[in-house]
């Protein structure tokens, strides 16, 4: 039956080539945008590369301290004191890493101003993330403990700073600090939130106050068994709830913070502001995020879908005899609805194929222009999502015309032809 439908679908597409072109153009454009958007999302929550063990990692990157008496809040990233007292002591995670966000650092080379992203890390960072070491080594526990002025740089930095000679052992001046390069690792893209940087140096090289509760740090909790994620989250909540009042930098007597999976964090960042949710306290906004993403995607599909539906309805008269004939031959309304939706999905599948051809070009442009060391690509999940978009778009744009066509009375369809 599907073979018969397919033959008809292709024949119908070839009957009116310009109309088909208009429909195909709309479908291709819509599906390309959706596929590219999903590729960006996918690379953020499942970055791969050094973060290929993402599913074993929880991230703590926000902390709010509250003075409950005066209802005064101070929110920021994690300070060293809070880390040492409430996070480093957690027992459920197998590894815990404390590191900063990548910060912009400027230096000059041969009169050229170079801007790099510098991240300060502990030694555990290199155990949890799995960098591709090109030369030398990564930061060791001794480097961190002794506060050695050593650095690991990525390939791009090595190429730009030391184009004609090996980078290992060379001096690297960043701002007012000078580091010895001990390792070169592969570039990690900007979408890999935990791994991305140009230069990594020991966290102990930073001028910092060890007693600061708030700071610019974030923490990775690594669990060999992802099934223990909830246990780790609960333990962290217990630790946060046990926060003891502090007087520096002001009087605070309560703390709010969460340990997130990558998807939870992404979802919270995307929807919490619109839902007026407290992003420090939100736990699971994945459902809301998915609902919002579906609504946005459907709205995005709506206009081209209405256009396609309109063009399809315009062809009802052309297909009336076939509809009458099929009904006379025993096709029920529901079977015909299925056939016409299938035909529309076929059209959208052609649009999908073109979108799959176009999307890598768009992703390449984004990799080159928008995302530093971008690694956006057409992965299997992106293809799967693209396939789902094809089906959904096909059904949405085909449902109403199909319903309208299939409900025609067979005698009316046939009478419309021969006027007997």
């Amino acid at each position, binding site marked *: *039956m599907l*073979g*018969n439908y397919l*033959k*008809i679908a292709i*024949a*119908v597409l070839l*009957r009116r080539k310009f109309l088909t072109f208009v429909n195909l153009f709309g479908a291709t454009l819509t599906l390309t945008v959706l596929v590219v958007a999903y590729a960006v999302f996918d690379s953020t929550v499942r970055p791969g590369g050094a973060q290929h063990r993402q599913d074993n990692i929880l991230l703590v990157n926000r902390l709010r301290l509250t003075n409950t008496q005066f209802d005064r809040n101070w929110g920021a990233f994690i300070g060293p004191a809070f880390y040492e007292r409430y996070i480093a002591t957690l027992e459920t995670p197998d590894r815990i890493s404390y590191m900063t966000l990548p910060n912009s650092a400027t230096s000059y080379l041969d009169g050229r101003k170079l801007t790099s992203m510098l991240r300060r890390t502990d030694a555990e960072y290199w155990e949890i993330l799995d960098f591709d070491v090109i030369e030398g080594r990564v930061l060791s526990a001794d480097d961190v403990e002794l506060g050695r002025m050593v650095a690991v740089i990525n390939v791009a930095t090595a190429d730009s700073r030391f184009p004609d000679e090996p980078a290992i052992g060379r001096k690297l001046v960043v701002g007012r600090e000078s580091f010895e390069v001990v390792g070169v690792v592969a570039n990690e893209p900007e979408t890999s939130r935990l791994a991305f940087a140009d230069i990594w140096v020991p966290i102990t090289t930073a001028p910092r106050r060890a007693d600061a509760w708030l700071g610019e740090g974030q923490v990775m909790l690594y669990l060999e068994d992802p099934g223990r994620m909830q246990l780790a989250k609960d333990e962290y909540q217990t630790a946060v709830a046990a926060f003891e009042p502090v007087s520096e930098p002001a009087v605070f007597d309560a703390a709010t913070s969460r340990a997130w999976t990558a998807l939870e964090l992404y979802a919270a960042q995307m929807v919490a502001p619109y839902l007026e949710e407290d992003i420090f306290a939100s736990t699971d906004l994945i459902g809301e995020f998915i609902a919002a993403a579906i609504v946005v995607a459907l709205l995005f599909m709506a206009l081209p879908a209405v256009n396609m539906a309109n063009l399809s309805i315009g062809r009802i008269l052309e297909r009336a*005899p*076939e509809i*009458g*004939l*099929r*009904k*006379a*031959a*025993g*096709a*029920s*309304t*529901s*079977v015909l609805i299925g056939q016409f939706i299938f035909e529309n999905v076929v059209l959208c599948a052609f649009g999908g194929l073109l979108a799959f051809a176009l999307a890598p070009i768009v992703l390449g442009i984004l990799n080159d222009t928008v995302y530093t060391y971008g690694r956006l690509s057409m992965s299997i999940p992106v293809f799967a999502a693209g396939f789902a978009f094809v089906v959904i778009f096909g059904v949405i744009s085909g449902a109403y015309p199909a319903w309208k066509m299939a409900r025609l*009375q*067979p*005698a009316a369809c*046939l*009478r419309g*032809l*021969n006027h*007997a």
Partner: protein
Amino acid sequence: MSEPIVALVDVQKVYRTDRMETVALQSVTLRIASGEFVAIMGPSGCGKSTLLNVLGLIDQPSDGEVVFAGRSMRGLGDAELAPIRNRELGFVFQSFHLIPDLRVVDNVELPLLYRRCSAHERRERAREALGIVGLDSRVDHFPTELSGGQQQRVAVARAMVGKPRLLLADEPTGNLDSHMSDEIMTLLEGLNSQQGTTIVMVTHDQAKADRTQRIIRLFDGQLIH
């Protein structure tokens, strides 16, 4: 007369628009016996095709009752009528109504698509039907590659491929020359006499009607006795 395969009881059919009502059938009561070959005659616009459509369950009467194989069709919806049309009825139209984008064999298979039937069985039965109408060498042609008479033979093959008990033909020879008309009539007569298929045929041609067993005459939507 044997048991009727289809009967109409006081059937009316009225087409209504915002401005006017057109009575197409008025108090029509008739029985078509199983195995009969019946011609419906009458002037243009008298309701012949409407009567055929009501008999073929592709149009609903405004009033009255259609009884098919002893079962009242009153109140049945599309989902219940579709399998009856599929298994019990075959249609041949004046303008053939072949799907131009499908090969001859695919056109003939059409009714079998809507019942449990493997692709292999569909193909075999379609080829067999095309053999009966003498077109077994044209299975892979497209309808536009055939003459009018050959196209109508394909339409007859499509109507009979599902082995229906009742075949309804709406001026099946209306678009054909006398030689091809004769071929189609011979085919229909063969179906009726050899396979026992009941046939109701609308025609303007008295000579064709004379080849059937009974003539029903219609004028202004009413039967003339």
